[in-house]
């Protein structure tokens, strides 16, 4: 056996290079561990009322739709009143978990005119975060049950409104400016001390600049149906506010805000736009009026107008009694807001006539001296509502004004005599204008013609009608004779009918026979057809 000699070569590659592989693997593994450890942020515990929709390992913690953590554990609290959710935040979000941070569960929520969190219908709930702005870090939080009303870092201004009642407002209700939604109600509560509703609203930038001390807010909720001396009024803001309520605001007319300065953060929420836009009322002045006649249609709240401007309202209506004369006068008390007179008030004020209460009363005295009287007037013919008008009545009888009386007593005149007179005058004038004589002439002619026609009817038409009726009567009598019991006509008819009946019977028999034996038409009748014998019923059935 000859085995060839191989060529010899010394090896250079060192086997130990293979150890690079496990070293690289170890380095990569350790790097991953370190990276994971470095990325791990703080662990926070959030308590919620319920863990609805939350899942360990799946539910995310998100801020601005970016995942910054994950729920790692959900447990019941020791006293079982709430749920403790443990979440691991990423390192970069560690500054989220500070004192003022807020956590809440984002679930689908649908209200009138808005909806939120609809993406969670499919993806499942997640935990939303509003990062805190300061304070030390913290690991235990109490979760909110509803999302905070403001989005992350909303620009705008928060305002506080106070109102007598809340109406149909609730958190989330829109705030409108010129019917654009520019904000929303974020909180509402009842002030314990004043029993007034306090409403916190947020106005988005840039509309917050539209809020000035002269801005008036009013409740734009629902449908405002108002039946008053001015007729029927229906007002709404938008379809959504009809259901969900809302607030509207606008600047008051410039003329009225000159000497009104309010703290910027606190506004009054008026019941409606009209009230809101009315000039500022100032201090009311109470007046009392005595009417001798009943005032049907005057109600509490009816307006009191001064030269056509509403300056106050009726606050009470009382019936008095005077035993001597057995008379029941009506006492009406009302509130007057002199400031509502606007420019007139300012002029009067500038003249220094009404700086004190006595001054005002003295001023009343002057006006009454010039013929100022209170008078109930019909505001609306349809509803019969009355309002009180303060007007200067020329030639009004002089009255004694008692400046010491409180409330100030205003002299009155009775319901709309002047008005009635004017109405009657108008009616009379219209009657005057009618062409009565011509109408009467025409009527006379027409009546004469009618008289002629009626005469003709009487003379000609009626006798002939009587004749015709008589003839008809005779004819009917003849017919009656013909049909009586034993008349020959009737007997004949009966005989004839009998004959016809017999003929029909024979004919029927023939028809039946031909039906069964049509050949008889050709062959003639067979000798003795006989009467077909009735077969026993049972056998006949069997044959069938």
């Amino acid at each position, binding site marked *: 056996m000859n*085995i*060839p*000699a*191989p*060529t010899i070569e010394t090896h250079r590659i060192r086997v130990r290079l*293979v150890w690079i592989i*496990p070293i690289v693997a170890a380095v990569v593994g350790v790097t991953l561990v370190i990276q994971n450890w470095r990325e791990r942020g703080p662990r926070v515990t959030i308590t919620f009322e319920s863990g609805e929709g939350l899942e360990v390992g*799946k539910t995310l913690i998100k801020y601005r739709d970016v995942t910054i953590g994950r729920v790692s554990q959900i447990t019941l609290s020791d006293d079982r009143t709430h749920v403790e959710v443990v979440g691991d935040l990423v390192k970069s979000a560690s500054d989220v978990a500070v004192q003022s941070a807020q956590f809440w569960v984002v679930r689908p929520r649908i209200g009138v005119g808005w909806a939120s969190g609809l993406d969670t219908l499919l*993806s499942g709930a997640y935990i939303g975060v509003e990062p805190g702005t300061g304070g030390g870090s913290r690991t235990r939080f109490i979760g909110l049950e509803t999302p905070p009303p403001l989005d992350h870092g909303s620009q705008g201004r928060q305002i506080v409104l106070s109102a007598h009642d809340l109406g149909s407002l609730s958190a989330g209700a829109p705030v409108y400016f010129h019917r654009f939604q520019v904000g929303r109600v974020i909180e509402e509560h009842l002030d314990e001390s004043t029993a007034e509703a306090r409403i916190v609203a947020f106005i988005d930038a840039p509309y917050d600049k539209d809020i000035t001390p002269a801005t008036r807010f009013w409740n734009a909720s629902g449908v405002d149906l108002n039946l008053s001396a001015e007729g029927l009024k229906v007002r709404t803001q938008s379809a959504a506010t009809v259901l969900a309520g809302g607030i509207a605001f606008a600047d008051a007319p410039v003329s009225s805000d000159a000497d009104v300065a309010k703290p910027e953060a606190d506004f009054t929420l008026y019941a409606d736009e009209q009230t809101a836009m009315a000039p500022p009322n100032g201090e009311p002045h109470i007046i009392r009026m005595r009417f001798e006649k009943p005032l049907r249609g005057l109600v509490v709240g009816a307006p009191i107008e001064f030269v056509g401007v509403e300056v106050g309202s009726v606050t009470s209506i009382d019936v008095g009694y005077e035993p001597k004369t057995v008379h029941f006068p009506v006492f009406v008390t009302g509130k007057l807001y002199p400031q509502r007179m606007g420019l007139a008030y300012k002029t009067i004020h500038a003249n220094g006539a009404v700086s004190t209460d006595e001054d005002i009363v003295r001023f009343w005295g002057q006006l009454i001296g010039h013929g100022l009287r209170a008078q109930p007037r019909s505001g609306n013919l349809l509803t019969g509502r009355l309002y009180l008008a303060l007007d200067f009545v020329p030639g009004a009888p002089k009255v004694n004004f008692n400046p010491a009386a409180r409330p100030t007593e205003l002299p009155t005149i009775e319901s709309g005599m002047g008005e009635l007179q004017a109405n009657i005058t108008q009616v009379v004038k219209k009657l005057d204008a009618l062409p009565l004589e011509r109408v009467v002439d025409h009527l006379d002619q027409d009546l004469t013609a009618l008289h002629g026609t009626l005469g003709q009817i009487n003379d000609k038409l009626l006798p002939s009608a009587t004749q015709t009726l008589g003839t008809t009567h005779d004819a009917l009598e003849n017919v009656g004779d013909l049909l009586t019991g034993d008349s020959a006509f009737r007997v004949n008819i009966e005989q004839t009918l009998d004959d016809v009946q017999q003929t029909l019977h024979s004919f029927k028999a023939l028809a039946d026979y031909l039906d069964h034996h049509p050949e008889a038409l050709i062959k003639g009748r067979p000798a003795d057809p006989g009467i077909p014998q009735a077969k026993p019923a049972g056998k006949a059935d069997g044959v069938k």
Partner: protein
Amino acid sequence: MQPVRAIDLGLMTCRVCAQVIDRATVGANVRCVRCHRVVTTRMRGSVEKSLALLIAGMILYFPANLLPVLHTSSVRGSSDSTIIGGILEFWDTGSWDIAALIFLASVVVPVTKFLAIGLLLWTVRWHSAWARHERAKLYRFVEFIGYWSMLDVVVVAITCSLLQFKALASAEPGLGIVFFCAVVVSTMMAARSFDPRLIWDTPGGGA
């Protein structure tokens, strides 16, 4: 008759073309006269190479299991699943057969390979004459099951290529599957680096 080792006869063979070479005429490092491949009596540094690859595989097995192998996203949200998480999910949803299969391929097979190769290396290191026939069978078994662990990789690859419905649902491979693939490759290489002839290089192994 006892089998005789080539080394005892002073012979060696080329691993590629099976050319028999007389070891007595040459030194340790030779090239095949026919195909010029380096010819050695035993694979050089077999135990060391195999051990290094085995250790690398074991190290890589940790990230392979801890990191997500599959990232699925659908309208219901997105989720990352690890190998064990996937097995548990299949088990919980009633697909216990698929769960068992994946468990076999991704846990049983790699761990068996670690243990088997470890055992082989250990016994060879200490020139143990214990159960040589069984160890030879074990080696063949390890070589055989080696690539079955790639099942996981294939599952992920198919899932990712089939589950692509844009916004509705999609799946992407996670980093874990890369590590798992590395585990499979390194253990296969470890098995290949092991020279089974070493089993018989013990007293009484040849003659």
